[in-house]
């Protein structure tokens, strides 16, 4: 079974601090990591390969430094890695990203399953998985928490939704997005680290992918950020005073007064 895992390199923390005086972002000294949800996707890909044979190819669209994330993926069990990088791809929103990824997946051609993390921790949109599946015109299942089995051109998975969990059967090739309940990612092995060090990671550019210039990067992105601002915290609260008992009495009185209880 040939598996493609899509991953993204993201800042290692979502705690972007804001300088209260200048109201600007402070992002010094944040290191980049593999998006945590994508780490589950990679682990699941490697486990499926161990179960059914085949190979795992990781792809990542990003700047040249994203190669570090791909190398790490090889140390974690991926067989091959491809960086999808071109200045023309920069500034892509989810639609342009999905288009570019789908071109790369089509170029790889021989695949049964594409695995993506449910969402990234920096963008938080959860749109690239489903949009890529649609552009490939293949089966799609989101929020996968367990792969039950793969056989005879079908994959059976468990899926977590708000109301409970579903068991779904999909035809291959398929794209699934995974949630963190699916597995516990392994640590890199010594052999993996050695392999990662010597791995040759090709970069596929717009030319190799034969992408339509109107559909990639900023030009191919219908959405655009027009304003960025700090959330307003306007609530003026009251810290209750007195002994714990007095505070509770006063709280209950206030809540009853406003007919909240």
């Amino acid at each position, binding site marked *: 079974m040939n598996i493609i895992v899509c991953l993204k390199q993201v800042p290692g923390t979502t705690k972007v601090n804001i300088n209260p005086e200048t109201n600007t972002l402070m992002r010094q000294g944040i290191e980049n990591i593999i998006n945590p949800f994508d780490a589950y996707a990679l682990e699941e890909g490697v486990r499926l390969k161990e179960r059914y044979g085949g190979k795992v190819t990781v792809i990542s669209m990003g700047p040249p430094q994203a190669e570090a994330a791909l190398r790490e993926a090889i140390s974690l069990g991926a067989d091959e890695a491809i960086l999808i990088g071109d200045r023309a791809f*920069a500034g892509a929103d989810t639609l342009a990203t999905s288009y570019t990824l789908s071109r790369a997946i089509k170029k790889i051609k021989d695949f049964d399953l594409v695995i993506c993390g449910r969402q990234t921790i920096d963008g938080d949109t959860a749109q690239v998985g489903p949009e890529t599946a649609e552009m490939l015109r293949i089966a799609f299942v989101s929020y996968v928490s367990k792969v039950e089995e793969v056989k005879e051109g079908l994959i059976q998975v468990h899926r977590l939704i708000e109301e409970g969990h579903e068991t779904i059967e999909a035809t291959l090739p398929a794209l699934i997005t995974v949630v963190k309940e699916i597995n516990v990612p392994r640590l890199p092995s010594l052999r993996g680290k050695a392999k990662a060090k010597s791995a040759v990671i090709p970069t596929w550019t717009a030319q190799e992918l034969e992408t339509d210039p109107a559909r990639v990067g900023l030009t191919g992105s219908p959405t655009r950020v027009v304003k960025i601002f700090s959330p307003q915290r306007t609530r003026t609260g009251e810290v209750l005073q007195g002994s714990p008992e007095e505070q509770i009495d006063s709280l209950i009185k206030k809540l009853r007064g406003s007919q909240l209880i």
Partner: protein
Amino acid sequence: MGIKINIETCTGCASCVAVCPFGVMEIKDDKAYVNVGCTLCGACKEACAFEAVIIEEEAKAPAAEGHRGIWVFAEQREGEIKSVGYELLSRGRELADSLQAEPSGRGLKTELCAVCLGNNIKNAEQLIAYGADKVFLVDDPALGSQSEDLYAGALVKLIQEHKPEIVLVGATSLGRSLIPRVAATLQTGLTADCTDLAIDTEKRLLLQTRPAFGGNIMATIICEAKRPQMATVRPRVFAKKPFSGRQGQIIKVDFDKAAVTSKTRLLSFVADLKEKIKIEDADIIVSGGRGLEKPENFKLIEELARVMGAAVGSSRPPVDEGWIPYSHQVGQTGKTVRPKLYIACGISGSVQHLAGMQTSECIVAINNDPNAPIFEIATYGIVGDLFKVVPMMIDKLKG
């Protein structure tokens, strides 16, 4: 289209570096330099005192003509229409009315329509009561199992046929999974998880605001040249506002079975029955956080919830620790709630938690750290040991 730095006027003051939300500005050889990843948001241009940042905007092709009206996807499950559909119609009504009042609309009617797909859908007329002028109802046994393939196919067809300019969808499990596929087929923009929607009436642009970077910063996003403009919106962001005696039209649409086939099949469904009262629907929520220290102590939260007739919520750490199932998690990566009363016990108030509950009507915080951020947004705060305060509260409410 692109960004340039005028090196003649750039002084290398780095004010652009400080404001760049994407961290792509850098000072090289005493001049500003733009790295890969710029989205042309313009923050640097605004911050530059020397007009050294030049953003060249390619005139985008104007949005296709002839798209009119606002659509709301009214999600149902087992025939019951979900609340988020009514919430979006209530906001959609206001947006449609403001577009209608705009002279550049050339007097063409801006209708608000609901579209609902399913089997044996109940109370579709309620969609009219919440503001819809028209309801497109696709009711077919094939749509009973919520196959996203069939839903996506039917929706794309309806949108292509009727050409709405805006499509709003609840950011539920289904919405967030289904709608990106519709947007991809239509090759249009989609903004996820909006917490506010407004309209630039003159340009007929939907101003879509969502938290970025884990909720520390809000970003407003537009989709200029493609139609429809699509957004998912978290449940309970907007209030439901029913009208009485509103008139509207229900249009039954046949589902064309031959046009779409499903590549997936639902084999079984097991409902999550753990929660007694669903937190999304509760008027009162009692939530526990890291301050509970151990899983057994959640009993205290459950007991307080029981005497108040409340649902039980949680911040992220107890869920990560496995003290309580994910379905109870409130926050950016959990559920958004908007109860009348939210009681946070031993929750410090990380941005990620606040993103899921800060629109609650009344917030009570119980925490032993007087500097916890939760007190910044609490209506009433009790600084104290929750292991003393909560049992005392339970006793008083029982008595």
